[in-house]
């Protein structure tokens, strides 16, 4: 029983960025469970110091290729918050579409290309395609649909160029949106197939303990990725300006990403946290998917993040169709970005991006140049919780075969859909 065991996954495959897992068991006790991050540092908060408000979003977009639309919009919302800019309804709808496009692309990529191969025993989507051509094709087509939205609204699928502070450079035409709507309707059927597939896959539970989770509360009575208040599962609601009370960051030696703690405890953000908190707002086919995949809520099993993403995939497609309808109602006349004055100020922006709540905070001088910045990404918030969940799983699986333990740990880490580039952008914190 007193086994010394060591598990090292030097490079976790099928995740975005460079990370690994390092576990040590000495004399039957867990002595180490580390999610190691060794992506290089890019020091974003320092890079944007001195840059003008109009330049920031296109720089911080580069924190991450996968959630570049989320970074772009969170950045613009923080800037608008600082300069008290009111955006138009059309901009709101277009931003919604862009975010849903990102969610569709990101969730389809994760579920179809990164997670399914795990569950079906393949090393990746390309080898899986030989035996499961239909499933891989559906995942790729949904991914393509998400990219099509981002391409149309953002002007580019990765690192959007069309979204600016105060609005958009160019609005899509009626014909383009009509075409997109047809494709979204086809996508809705495809997303049904994904939900069906996942409902047939039973995800294990390694005795995960109840944990804390957090997400933005929707502004209106509907499921949304936008909100002005952060809800934590201990029952507290705070305005987004108090984001530092939720994510208190610390430096750990095995990671170039800082870890976030809430009241000195790890917590979870992302699709499962959102479903746990906001599931009552789901309607339509997304509600049907929820009922199919989640007989019990809340769930504390991180592997259920995969189910939660499948539900959100359906929701994002349905909501995109609805947003196009709204855009038709308000018409298609050209609209310039809102004009505004700059002054010395500070602002915060928050969005539920695919992996969880993303915060951007900026302070500007009277010329509209950044003097202080802070970006807290979902993966940085989740890292401590990944380690907590892995520790729980090690406890359960310690005596079993080593390869089962290793693959289970990889599955847990992968379920979080970690975006390591994001986590390692390096947060600059000054608690005042």
């Amino acid at each position, binding site marked *: 029983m007193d086994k010394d065991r060591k598990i090292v996954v030097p490079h976790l495959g099928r995740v975005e960025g460079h990370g690994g897992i390092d576990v040590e068991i000495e004399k039957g006790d867990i002595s180490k469970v580390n999610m190691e991050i060794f992506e*290089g540092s890019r020091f974003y908060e320092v890079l944007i110091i001195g840059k003008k408000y109009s330049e920031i979003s296109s720089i911080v977009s580069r924190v991450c290729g996968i959630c570049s639309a989320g970074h772009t919009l969170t950045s613009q919302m923080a800037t608008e918050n600082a300069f008290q800019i009111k955006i138009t309804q059309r901009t709101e709808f277009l931003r919604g579409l862009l975010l849903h496009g990102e969610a569709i692309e990101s969730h389809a990529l994760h579920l179809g290309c990164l997670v399914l191969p795990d569950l079906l025993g393949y090393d990746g989507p*390309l080898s899986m395609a030989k035996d499961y051509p239909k499933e891989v094709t559906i995942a790729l087509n949904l991914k393509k649909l998400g990219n099509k939205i981002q391409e149309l609204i953002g002007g580019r699928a*990765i690192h959007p160029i069309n979204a600016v502070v105060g609005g958009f450079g160019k609005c899509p035409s009626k014909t383009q949106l009509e075409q997109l709507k047809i494709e979204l309707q086809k996508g809705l059927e495809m997303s049904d197939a994904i939900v069906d597939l996942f409902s047939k896959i039973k995800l294990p539970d390694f005795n995960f303990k109840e944990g804390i989770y957090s997400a933005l509360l929707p502004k209106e009575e509907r499921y949304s990725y936008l909100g002005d208040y952060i809800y934590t599962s201990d029952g507290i609601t705070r305005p987004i300006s108090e984001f530092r009370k939720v994510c208190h960051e610390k430096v750990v030696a095995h990671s170039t990403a800082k870890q976030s703690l809430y009241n000195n405890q790890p917590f979870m953000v992302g699709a499962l946290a959102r479903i746990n908190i906001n599931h009552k707002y789901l309607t339509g086919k997304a509600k049907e998917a929820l009922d199919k995949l989640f007989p019990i809520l809340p769930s504390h099993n991180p592997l259920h993040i995969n189910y939660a993403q499948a539900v959100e995939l359906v929701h994002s497609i349905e909501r995109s169709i609805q947003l196009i309808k709204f855009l038709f109602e308000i018409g298609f006349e050209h609209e310039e970005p809102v004009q505004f004055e700059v002054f010395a100020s500070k602002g915060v922006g928050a969005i539920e991006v695919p992996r969880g709540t993303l915060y951007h905070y900026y302070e500007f001088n009277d010329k509209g140049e950044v003097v202080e910045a802070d970006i807290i990404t979902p993966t940085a918030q989740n890292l401590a919780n990944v380690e907590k969940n892995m520790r729980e799983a090690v406890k359960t699986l310690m005596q079993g075969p080593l390869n089962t333990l290793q693959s289970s740990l990889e599955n847990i880490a992968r379920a979080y859909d970690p975006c390591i580039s994001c986590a390692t952008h390096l*947060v600059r914190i000054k608690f005042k």
Partner: protein
Amino acid sequence: MTKKPKIGIFGLTSCAGDQLAILNCEDELLTIADAFDILDWEMAKTNNDKVTELDIAFVEGVVAQTRDLEALQAIRKRSKLLVAIGTCAVWGGVAAMKNQIPREILKKEVYGEEINVVDSVEALPVRSFVKTDILLPGCPIEKEQFLQIAASLLHGDLPELLNFSVCSECKMRENACLVVEKGEICCGALTVSGCNARCPSHNIPCGGCHGPIEEVHYDANYTMFAQRGITKEEIQTKMSNFAAPAWMGQKLLSEIK
């Protein structure tokens, strides 16, 4: 039929956007997987082959830590051809924007005084360290350009790369000029094409994310901006975003003093 080329796709420190751009070739991905033998691609598969010699390595990202340099040297050693993909790999990208600030200061700013855990070096492009055979800039790369390169290499040809400016593409799309009409700082005249003038076609000035064309006319551009009341600091700030080592190291700083 000849054997399938063995390839690897790699990311150094980066946003993974260029690898994502390859994954975004949804219609072509399965064909690519069929035409090439993809031995090593950590972002898309597990069980990667880390030793077999490669015909082609595609490398994204910058060298920002010694770990990146070691990885890059190992990739170069095992590969016949190395294709640098993305503006980071070709020019340094955003990470190289403020290389003039010593890393020690940056680390203290970020982590505080008490812990020094970070392996960080001045961010430089792939080609500062190893021989590159093909350079494909873009932030991210345009997937059509990637597919053209992949197709050329598959047929044993070296691809021909573009060397005209975004400005030329913009004119072909008959957009109104944002510099002339609106007095904006548009980097289109200095920046290499490939994007089909995405930004100016959306009424957004070019940010220079593909890096410079060969033989840029810095003087003429600077004069053009200056005549519209734009200061040299504003021009510098804008132009240093994506390819600072190219602009700053070569000419821009000295020419616009």
